[in-house]
């Protein structure tokens, strides 16, 4: 599996640390399942830490958007942390930077909810 995830909580915000590649298949499925699980458990503040994610394809981007909209439909908010240059370029090209709140400082991100 080329994507690993781990979950921690800081001041009521669930932070998902994603490490590896988010591409179509197992990896994008893992991201989806992780977020759906968190939402099912009633979490409303989800912060996806992409600091160790250097690669994402269009399906991975799509999965980020789906996480965002699924959360929004349930009154929850998905935000991004530590987006790396390569991934940020993709957010620019796809204009998804207009959708996501994105932070480089974890405590700032946590405080923003």
């Amino acid at each position, binding site marked *: 599996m080329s994507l690993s995830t781990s979950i921690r909580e800081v001041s009521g915000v669930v932070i998902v640390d994603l490490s590896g590649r988010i591409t179509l*298949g197992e990896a994008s499925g893992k991201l989806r399942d992780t977020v759906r699980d968190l939402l099912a458990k009633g979490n409303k503040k989800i912060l996806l830490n992409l600091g160790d994610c250097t690669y994402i*394809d269009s399906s991975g981007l*799509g999965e980020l958007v789906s996480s965002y*909209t699924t959360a929004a439909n349930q009154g929850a908010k998905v935000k991004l942390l530590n987006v790396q240059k390569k991934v940020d370029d993709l957010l620019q090209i796809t*204009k998804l930077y207009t959708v996501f709140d994105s932070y480089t400082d974890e405590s700032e991100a946590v405080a923003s909810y």
Partner: protein
Amino acid sequence: MQEVRELHLELGSTLDSADAAELIVQRLAEEYGFSAEQIEHLGMAARESMVNAIVHGNAYSKEKHVRFSVVVGPEKITVTVRDEGLGFSPTEVPDPLSRENILRGSGRGLLLIRAFVDHVEIHPAEPVGTEVVMVKFSSPQAGGQSEHKEE
């Protein structure tokens, strides 16, 4: 390496074939002196076109294959991906940048392909399927066709 290298493969309709295509294109581009960013972009274009061939074209069918070719020389790299699917009309694909589509969970592959190579051609293949031809030049000056990016 100044000689031209060519590679022609028949790959199965599995997602591992997309990984393979990406890695092959990246390594060849590296051998021929493309920049780190160009290599990244080429790999992504190869991946996205392969995923389209596998998922939309061949619908993961075990009976269908993806024909994947690379021709690389000192000036440019040409990557061709051909599936055995039903084909589609690129002009009818919804614009993923428009306000009403921005929250869609898919539809950004062709956008990335066009952003990352200098020239893209998508046409029906004979007798069936779709062929996507992507060209990227190693130095920007050589890229006389880069207006195609905006097509």
